[in-house]
């Protein structure tokens, strides 16, 4: 096991296309880090740079004590779970699990023991002699994880491992991955575009946008104090309302900011609320409703109990501490309001 440090890491493709720039992350031993962001934000590229599948053009990556920039994937002591699992189709499950150990000259008895241990942990014992094509999606996913854990590597790298599963299985596997990682306490880097998956899995999240780090922090830190409008809009569902301050004039304490943010769940309906909302649509979710509407010509959404009365126009109030202020030009958070 090991810590992983990314020191000013960047990647420029031939032809001067920058995929990743100035990334600094320190990952503690045993920590579960999730890289999250929209597609094309560079999260997969960054993971593949840690794995050694993409060259590093700027900065240094350390795994444990070593700088691994020039070290080949096989020698970085990492294991990777691929999005399409990348199971060897012509080998049985057992051979798939054993292949990495065999290549490293692990003694036969040791391979046998580790494969059986992994199979037991992942409950794939009865499939060991099948070929991958005879397995269901979820079973393949387990084999892919098994291939990572038999190696007992310094770090696990996950590249959107759940995106090929159906929604229900995704939730189950998410929990299993979390429990497995807690049990093995292996440093892990996990890439996903799904913010919910990211929130539930991560010890700490790294939000990436356009190849750069927007913010690093625990799920709650990011939820409570998003550092930019991008993070504010990306983390949390339904997304935070980001409203130009001119649309809601006379709000106390917003003088310096031209964008104010407030989460739909932090808005409540009160007779004397400072915001007036014209309701345009209602989405029924069961326990609660999402109400969409306009204020000062800008879209706004709130969550609202299902049994509460509805009206054409609602007045909204909020707690001052739940207000987020941003500078619209840079998108950065402004803290003066607090």
């Amino acid at each position: 096991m090991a810590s992983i440090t990314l020191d000013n890491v960047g990647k420029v493709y031939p032809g001067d296309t920058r995929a990743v720039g100035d990334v600094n992350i320190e990952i503690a031993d045993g920590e579960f880090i999730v890289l999250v962001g929209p597609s094309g934000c560079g999260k997969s590229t960054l993971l593949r740079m840690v794995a050694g599948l993409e060259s590093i053009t700027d900065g240094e990556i350390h795994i444990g004590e070593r700088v691994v920039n020039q070290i080949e994937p096989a020698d970085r002591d990492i294991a990777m779970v691929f999005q399409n699992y990348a199971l060897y189709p012509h080998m049985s499950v057992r051979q798939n699990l054993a292949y990495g150990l065999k290549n490293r000259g692990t003694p036969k008895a040791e391979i046998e023991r580790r494969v059986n241990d992994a199979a037991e942990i992942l409950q794939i014992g009865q499939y060991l002699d099948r070929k991958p094509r005879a397995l269901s999606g979820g079973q393949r996913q387990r084999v892919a994880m098994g291939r990572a854990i038999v190696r007992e590597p310094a770090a696990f790298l996950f590249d959107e491992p759940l995106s090929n599963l159906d929604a229900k299985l995704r939730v189950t596997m998410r929990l299993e991955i979390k429990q497995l990682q807690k049990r093995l306490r292996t440093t892990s880097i996990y890439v996903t575009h799904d913010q919910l998956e990211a929130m539930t899995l991560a010890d700490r999240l790294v939000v990436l946008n356009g190849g750069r780090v927007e913010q690093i922090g625990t799920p709650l830190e990011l939820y409570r104090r998003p550092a930019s409008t991008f993070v504010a809009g990306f983390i949390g569902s339904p997304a935070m309302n980001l409203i130009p301050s001119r649309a809601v004039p006379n709000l106390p304490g917003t003088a310096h900011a031209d964008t104010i943010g407030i989460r739909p769940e932090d808005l409540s309906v009160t007779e004397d609320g400072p915001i007036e909302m014209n309701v345009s649509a209602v989405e029924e979710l069961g326990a609660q409703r999402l109400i969409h509407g306009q204020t000062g010509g800008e879209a706004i959404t709130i969550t609202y109990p299902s049994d509460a009365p509805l009206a054409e126009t609602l007045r909204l109030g909020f707690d001052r501490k739940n207000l987020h202020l941003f500078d619209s030009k840079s998108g950065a958070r402004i803290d003066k309001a607090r």
Partner: protein
Amino acid sequence: MIENRPGLNILAHVTLILGVVVVAMPVWVAFVASTHTATDFSSGTIPMWPGPHLVENYRTMLDTGLSTSGTPPVGQMMVNSMIMALSIAIGKICISMLSAFAIVYFRFPFRGLAFWCIFITLMLPVEVRIVPSFQVVADLGLLNSYAGLSLPLIASATATFLFRQVFLTIPDELTEAARIDGAGPMKFFRDILLPLSRTNMAALFVILFIYGWNQYIWPLLITTEPQYYTIVAGIKRMADVVDGLPKWHLVMATAIMAMLPPVAVVIGMQRLFVKGLVETEK
């Protein structure tokens, strides 16, 4: 690739360059030979670089040919080859499309038998049934004719299967819409199927043109009058001289001209060529 190993990349480039050189070598030698005179290499040393007689040699062959070998001018043989190749390619495409249309879009008695009848041609290459096929063509009076050169070669299971495959991927809804719009079968064929299979036709044409142009045993057997000789079959007659050495510089000039049209088609339409090659093997 995965590892950053410049050594392996260099090795790959060296391998490929070597491959390209080996593949191109015979044609280069032939080209060099075709630009010299007979005396330049009958002395025993082989020139490595082109000589000054290119225009002269090629013009001789195109206009007059090698009369000692009984072959007509190369120009005329190329025209014959072109007629044969185009007839075979276009003929195969036409009759294959029509039969694929019948098999896919109609249900009629003995449809399976008709299908097998076409399928079986896969198993009867011309080389295998050469003697009786010659007999049939002779009995029909087709020796020394363009029909004799092309007709026996235009039945094609491969092309029929290809179009069958293409038609099967055309959604049923299109047929239904066309029928609702009042289109009969032939109108549907002309207005829907033909335009939708255009690239497949083009890809197939490239392959079939090469196939037709390169025919050897068949034209060799059924043409005895020089005016019907094709260039690929004619070369052999030039190289076969009873006494003395063949006029290698002129034979090589002919070889270069014989490969020029199909090679130009492959290089000029590489994408269609690859598509055609892969599709006909499905």
